[in-house]
């Protein structure tokens, strides 16, 4: 009974947060700036174009009403039309989102072993030279901003050892091989950035588990080192690993913004940058809301997973 109550509570909180985000986003671009139309048109504004834009965006209506219209649309999947291309936002989003999903998926798959293996090695060989060595490497990689890392990888694998393309432009007609070539550098960059962050936290977490009373007890009742690690220690690292992964997913959404730019990958991230540059209001609202939604859902899954996996909430 308690488990379900906890889960429902989490879902409720997640929905509440998402709703607050929608308010924040809307307020940021449509309410607070004041003269929205003037902003968008900038120096090209004429009284007629301003009036037309105001009419189009319904800027004369009260803010609450405009918010409600937009929000209702969102609930139905209708984010309005892009200001620049006049196409429905959802359509433009759809293509880009799919691309980014593929990129993220590959990055994620690469990240898992890249994070787990060093963390395990570090935890088991604590305080020895390999532990220190890996720590130094992760520190340096951590301190390299993602766009810089991407650029360095670019320089290495496109210029010094020219095996990969400099840009990752893919279209609907690109072949599988072209996809692989295009995805490699951006996916690897993302994977490495996520992995170095996770390795440190996983190491700390594994060490904490290995120092627990019950691990000591397992050892003192004669369990082999292998059994202690696999049967007693690792399962208790699952929950924190979930949390770390959720956080990484959160990073991923933000990270694609800049990585896609570096490699000119036609995804969700570069869409956001472009729309901010031209102040395409409906586009901005949609992309920011979507980013937050992904983060919230990812965290929700991690939380629910943690609840379901928590042995203290289990009944026999």
């Amino acid at each position, binding site marked *: 009974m308690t488990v379900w109550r906890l889960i429902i509570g989490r879902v409720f909180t997640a929905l509440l947060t998402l709703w607050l985000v929608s308010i924040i986003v809307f307020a940021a671009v449509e309410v607070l700036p004041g003269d929205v139309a003037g902003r968008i048109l900038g120096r090209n504004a004429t009284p007629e174009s301003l009036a037309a834009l105001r009419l189009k965006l319904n800027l004369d209506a009260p803010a609450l009403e405009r918010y409600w219209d937009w929000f209702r649309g969102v609930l139905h999947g209708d984010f309005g039309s892009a200001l620049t291309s006049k196409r429905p936002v959802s359509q433009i989003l759809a293509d880009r989102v799919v691309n980014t999903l593929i990129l993220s998926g590959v990055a994620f798959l690469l990240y898992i072993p890249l994070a787990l293996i060093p963390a395990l090695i570090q935890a088991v060989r*604590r305080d020895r030279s390999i532990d220190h060595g890996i720590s130094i490497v992760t520190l340096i990689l951590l301190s390299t901003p993602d766009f810089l890392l991407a650029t360095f990888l670019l320089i290495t694998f496109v210029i010094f050892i020219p095996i990969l393309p400099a840009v990752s432009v893919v279209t609907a007609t690109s072949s599988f091989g072209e996809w692989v070539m295009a995805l490699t550098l951006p996916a690897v960059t993302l994977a490495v950035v996520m992995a170095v962050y996770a390795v440190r936290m996983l190491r700390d977490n594994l060490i904490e588990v290995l120092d627990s*009373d019950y691990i000591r*007890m397992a050892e*003192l*009742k*004669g*369990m*082999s080192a292998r059994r202690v690690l696999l049967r007693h220690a690792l399962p208790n690292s699952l929950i924190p690993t979930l949390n770390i992964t959720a956080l990484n997913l959160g990073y991923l959404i933000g990270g694609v913004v800049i990585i896609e730019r570096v490699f000119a990958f036609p995804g969700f991230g570069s869409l956001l940058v472009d729309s901010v540059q031209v102040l395409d209001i409906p586009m901005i609202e949609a992309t920011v809301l979507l980013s937050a939604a992904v983060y919230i859902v990812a965290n929700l899954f991690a939380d629910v997973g943690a609840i379901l996996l928590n042995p*203290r909430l289990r009944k*026999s």
Partner: protein
Amino acid sequence: MRVATDPVIAVEELDFAYRTSGQWVTVLKGVSVHIEKGEVLGLVGESGCGKSTLAYTLLSYLRSNARIDNGKVLFGGLNLLDLQRSELDQLRGVQISLVPQNPTTALSPHIRVGQQIGEVLVQHDFLQDKSVIDERIQELFSLVELPNPDALALRYPHQLSGGQQQRVCIAMALACDPNLLILDEPTTGLDVTTQSQIIALLIRLRKQLGMCMLYVTHDLGVLAQIADRVGVMYAGYMVEVAPLDRLFDTPRHPYTKGLIGSVPDVDIRKRMSQSLKGLLQRDKLPVGCPFQPRCDHEDATCREMPQTLEIVSDGHQVACQRWRSIEPGVPVDLTDAEWSTAPGDRSLLALDNVSLRYSADTLFSSVFGRSSIPVVRQVSLSLRRSETLALVGESGSGKSTIAKAVAGILPPLTGIIEFDETGLAGDIRRRTAEQRKNIQFIFQNPDASLNPRSSIEQILSRPLVKFFGLSNSELHDAIDDSLASVKLDSTYRARYPDELSGGERQRVAIARALAARPKLLLCDEILSALDVSVQANIISLLRQLQTENEIAMLFISHDLAVVRNLAHRVAVLYDGELMETGQVEALFSPPFHPYTHVLLLAVPSIYNRRASNVPARTEIVGTAAGKGCAFAGRCPWQLGEVCTQEDPPWRQNGQSNWIRCHHPLEELSKRATWHLQLNGTGKPG
């Protein structure tokens, strides 16, 4: 150092150190001890003496920052310290097993308890066939008296009570019929009644199975129930080894005498004067005898000469070169003539029909929360000036909650609290400054009750400034006086809490409370986190302060022995309800409330050794709370249906003693047995 017969395990000249924050600390120095077949060796000492480390060394369990400088651990012809992990894996759990201190954290939270035993059997090739394994698990569970073995094996650790978890750990340790059982303070975290049941179980098992044991504890009373021989440790040294009776009747080492003298006993009242003076200071240990700085019998060479165990008599050794010139035995004062503050007449504190519930904090629970049963129900108490009223009970009895209500942390649900014959507001913010000054609280944990970022001077100045508006010049002297009253010198002013020991911190907390010159001190288990000898000093300090300052105390404790040595009156609580109240001496003589009787029987006493009067195993049956007696379902003298249906009446026993029971007082007197075990005289046997 000759060894009697062929011992099961022997430690020779062990030197053990480990590194913390870059420094090497010696934990064991030249320790030698052995355990014979079938015997129980007790290891006793206070915090930092190294007893737990020694126990774990018998399993060759060393952290990576530990170092063995010297010594051997001989078992079955091998030196355990030389063995590799894989060899040790074959030894641990099979020939030597451990029963841990904290069973709740020692059991893996994600594995069912049956499986945790099963894997021991499988790993050690003890049994292979699955059905045979299941049978063995059932057998073990029955051996440790766990009910419904088949259902229990499927449970997770958090679904079991503390006592049940420890039984599982014991079963796990016995799974492969070990030769040696090592028990590291196995009952420390448990209630006193649960503790006595576990000890009784261990005594039975030992008779049945005949394995030898190493029993580590800080509790001399527990030792007196189970040990054959005892080793006393101090600051990493073994200072005395003796058979049990010899140790308690004629202890030779000054530390042992002081330790025994410090332990408050439930059977008699002691003077409790400074039995052990001073404190252990690890960084200032002399080259010779470690106890020398605190010893009353030292001579010129004690400081320089390393002490070795000398033979006093058969099986009795002591590491003190002066033992021949020191009187054996522990002086015990049986009168309490020196300590009798006469309580005043007027009522200082009165609780009338008070019920309490934990506060609901979050938004959610205030919207969705259901009404729950109050944790304290209809309690009425009174306290006079200069009087100490002890609130006694086990965990969940509500005693701390009552203290919090009087303090103003938790407003009462129903009922009235009066102080100095005026009503006391439930919430601290609505009380007068005078009331806040007159009621002071001292917490259990000295680590948490002092601000780590404030100096002692700053900590003590706050109440002085707040309640008396002292100026800076006046403060200086006032703080010195404050420190002196708790026997700390003025060098403590500039220090910070993390530089002080637990006992010193608790003294500062007391000084802080007294600085306000209160009329009432609320002491919430203030001794529980302290070593035995430190407790003794604080008890004698409190007595003195009460006499000097005419302060009343509401003393919360689970320890009946302490209560007997400190309180004028006692109230016994069970599950939020009062069971018995009265003068302290009346509490310790018949008639007893059934619960009081159970508690008394459960307290291990060093004068009542190897007691066989174990209270009957009682299952906790859920009671319809709010109706009937709270103790029904667990009561060994339960009358029947009436106990769960009707609230028991209060029966007056003498002038100011009350017992709440359906049994008439004569019946309770008839059934009482506790007072008889002391040869009928109430004096140590």
